């Protein structure tokens, strides 16, 4: 890890950037280094968790559950697990960084600077996206060692992973601004992010659910992100990926607009 840290530091220091964009770039750089410095907790741990899910569920359900034609259950499971980890880690990055900075009081170092609310938003958002994608990519690379995962529509994979991590990164910023204590943040994690992740079709197709729960699943934004992302691999989905794409994009725009309004007003950041 120290070698990788030095490599990342050197890479970032070598990057030249116009003074105009140096402020938000510095904040992004700080946010990236922050999660990288504790990479065992922020990258390795979620990768191991996802692989444990994969090991257990594939061992128990392989050969018993067939979701898509010609797609073994273990292979079906992998994109869902990747996307779930991308989403959870994107949320965790922005939310934990903000709540820690607020509780420790060091957010003041950013609030005293000439950074605009848009620059603040972009830096935290990009860091969240990058952490989500790094975790997702690591799970993908490790899983590739065990199974053959087809890729039918690579651009759909890219689009859904970017939009999904951006959506949850934005939601993480809202949670980080709103929460004043760590237990308030745990409410978001345990009562919103976890249930929505597990009830989104990561481990099953919603067609296997009774009609009522199928309708309920359609209210879950995580379902569209995971279903669309999975379409990128298998070319099959529970609903049209274009509908999913539109819903995810609209949700992101709405959430981003709300976050920018919060940041501009100084809600809970400036009295």
């Amino acid at each position, binding site marked *: 890890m120290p070698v990788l840290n030095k490599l990342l530091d050197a890479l970032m220091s070598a990057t030249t950037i116009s*003074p105009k964009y140096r402020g938000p770039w510095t904040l992004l750089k*700080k946010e990236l280094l922050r999660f990288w*410095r504790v990479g065992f907790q922020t990258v390795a741990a979620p990768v191991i968790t996802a692989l444990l899910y994969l090991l257990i569920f594939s061992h128990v359900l392989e050969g018993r559950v067939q979701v898509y034609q010609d797609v073994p259950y273990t292979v079906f499971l992998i994109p869902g697990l990747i996307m779930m980890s991308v989403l959870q880690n994107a949320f965790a990055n922005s939310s934990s960084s903000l709540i820690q900075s607020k509780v420790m009081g060091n957010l003041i170092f950013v609030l005293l600077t000439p950074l605009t609310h848009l620059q603040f938003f972009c830096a935290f958002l990009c860091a969240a996206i990058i952490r989500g994608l790094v975790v997702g990519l690591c799970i993908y690379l490790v899983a590739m060692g065990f199974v053959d995962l087809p890729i039918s529509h690579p651009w759909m994979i890219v689009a859904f992973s970017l939009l999904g991590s951006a959506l949850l990164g934005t939601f993480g910023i809202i949670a980080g601004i709103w929460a004043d204590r760590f237990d308030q943040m745990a409410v978001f994690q345990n009562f919103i992010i976890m249930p929505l992740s597990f009830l989104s079709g990561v481990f099953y197709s919603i067609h296997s659910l009774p009609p009522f729960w199928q309708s309920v699943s359609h209210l879950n934004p995580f379902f569209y992100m995971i279903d669309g992302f999975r379409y990128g691999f298998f070319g099959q989905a529970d609903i049209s990926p274009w509908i999913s794409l539109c819903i995810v994009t609209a949700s992101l725009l709405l959430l981003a607009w709300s976050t920018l309004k919060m940041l501009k007003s100084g809600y809970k950041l400036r009295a």
Partner: protein
Amino acid sequence: MTTAIRINRIHKHFGALHALKGIDLSIEEGEFFALLGPNGAGKSTLINILAGLIKPSSGDISVLDFDVVEQFRQARQLLGIVPQELVFDPFFNVREMLRFQAGYFGRGPENDAWVDEILVGLGLADKANTNMRKLSGGMKRRALIAQALAHKPPVIVLDEPTAGVDVELRQTMWAFIKKLNREGHTIILTTHYLEEAETLCNRIGMMKQGELVALDSTANLLNKFAGKKLSLTLGEVGLPEAIRPMLRAQEKGVHTFALTDMGQIEFVLSSLRTANIPVVDMQLQEADLEDVFLSLVGKE
């Protein structure tokens, strides 16, 4: 001379509390200015409005003619603020924090020489690569000051920078801050150590319950409000009624009287003679800022 900070009829309400009651104040470029007052006087609220951390209810503040609300980007570029709380980011070392802080203000590698100068000036050079978490309280305070200076701001606000730090740090820090002031930086200081304000600052503003109750040069304040102090060792005695209003302090039989003119010395001594109270020892001292402070804001 340009005005570094112009505060114009600033009011701040926190619900029913009227924290700032129409403060008007101008601080000129190059000044070493002290803002004093008891806890709850509104100093930190005023500084937080200047920093953009609190929005004023009405009125405006500008830094070198840039409004801190409307032109916050330009105003904050010109300001370096040392917060009162001892806060730090536990993920990074001192040098990284200073580089980040300069980077937020658009400063890149060309600023590294200045970062080195700050590290040396504040006695942090040997701790440059130490994680913030591992620094002692005094070192953390130095790092906090260094962070405020990282982008080389022309106006520096130090909100109780020496609270809880040792004499050595204070001396190192003040030597560096005085050097910055000589180079043209405007310094605004809030402190509870009144002797620091008296020694360092050319001008002093005193706040009480959200209002500015005094604003003058340090010398004028000392002359105008304090005069001299007469300390008489009398033992545990009852003082004559006529001189009781002049009594400022009484400890272990030493009675200290505040004098507005020298003629009062004879008045005090004759009152004691009349009351048959012998004077064991006598000392005449120049009054200090603490006397001014007490006479203006110390008595509720």
